[in-house]
């Protein structure tokens, strides 16, 4: 579990990139929901935290793939693979992220952490 920040530090409509391996993007939607997904687009190397948040959908800042933050599903190409989603808990007004143990769908050629 990663304790990200106080909820009040991430206003609605905003996003935050959390340094992890691989990095995570946390979004606070205008409707007040908080979602966490892998930060790196599944298409190529771009940070979804830099993207455009609309409702429960994030649009990638590089080629405009859209992902549903609730499920990770691809709503618009060019991405083909869903983005991995993580579970968010709000504990004492803090955003906490429980990392998924599924395999991430990192784009080809992108790696994080200690490469052996």
């Amino acid at each position, binding site marked *: 579990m990663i304790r990200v920040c106080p909820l009040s530090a991430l206003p609605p409509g905003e996003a935050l990139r959390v340094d992890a391996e691989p990095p995570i993007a946390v979004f606070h939607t205008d409707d007040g929901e908080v979602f966490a997904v892998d930060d790196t687009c599944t298409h190529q190397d771009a940070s979804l935290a830099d993207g455009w948040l609309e409702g429960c959908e994030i649009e990638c800042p*590089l*080629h405009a793939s859209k992902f549903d933050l609730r499920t990770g599903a691809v709503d618009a190409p060019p991405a083909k693979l869903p983005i991995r989603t993580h579970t968010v808990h709000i504990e004492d007004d803090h955003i906490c992220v429980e990392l998924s143990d599924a395999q991430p769908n990192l784009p080809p*050629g992108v790696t994080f952490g200690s490469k052996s």
Partner: protein
Amino acid sequence: MRAVTIVGASLAGLYTAQALRTQGYDGEVVVIGDERARPYDRPPLSKEFLAGKIEADVLTLESADDDLDARWLLGSPAVSLNPATREVVLADGTRIGSDAVVIATGARARALPGTRQLAGVHSLRTIEDAAALRSELLPGARLVVIGAGFIGGEVAATAKALGLDVTVVEAMASPLAGPLGTQMGAVVSGLHEANGVALRCGVGVERIVGTGRVEAVQLVDGTLLPADVVVVGIGAIPNVEWLIRSGVALGNGIECDHQGRTGIPGVLAVGDCAAWYDQRLGRTHRVEHWTGAMERPAIAVAALLGGDGSSTDRLAGIPYFWSDQYDVRIQFAGHVIEADSVTVEEGAADSHNLLAVYRRGDVPVGVLGMNQARLFGRWRRQLNAAVPV
């Protein structure tokens, strides 16, 4: 409509086929392509693929669950189009008749005039080009890149990271002077220099020296740049010669209205080969960037299936491109040519981290980001939302 033929089996051709299906067309689709390969992605050819970080298998543009039900005729180019019958004839003699033809034949690398092809001299447009160049990018080799446009800049950056000794020659006053203007082009000069790549701007190439294999590049000022490998990156030419007798209007690319219709009923054009009417510029303009080739087919297909065009007034977004050079992601949207000023609004030139806005008078007409994806995206959205006057 029962049959649509798409000529050109790359990004714009594939997205045309996809748009036909997602917009409900259930007739026959034929895709003609002169390359043998199924559609693949070109941008990585100067980046991750050239660097050896990814292989050809991940470049494929189709996805496993695409259900296009198209007939692919690959390996033989289209050589003519009959405007009255819309029949397309291939080099191998095959004739394809249909109700509509969407042209997506893209562009090819421009060759350096007056130079013979020597071993070690490369251009970069196809997967074969990239594989051939990649095999010669050996650490310690001397690479001269002719042209500091997107491809030249990216090849220089990739080769530098691979340990080559790199010199870039550019006839204009700065890299990317056309697409970014010379003021921001100068920032890109700084980027090359900061990364240890030598840059020679404002000087043309006289000739490529060598017998059998390249030995040097001679500049018009007499300088001789020794070279083991040369990459010519001096722009691209639209693949439209096969249409010369078709009656389709050709300028710099295929002349189209704002939704891709040519003057011939049932014949449209998309992607790098097409010059759509641009309402902001008040003239046709050929866009040769990935996002245009990906997004515009849906607009053209809507125009095709919708018929008269009055019902479909979807507009193309302003031209947008990105380029990855060294550790900088360059993003640009809009038209430099409209601007009379450019100001850095965020970050700084020497840090190669900035957002610059191009304006005509006080109206924003373009935006440039270097490692400023978030802010850039907001500006691009705003520019797209602004109604052209």
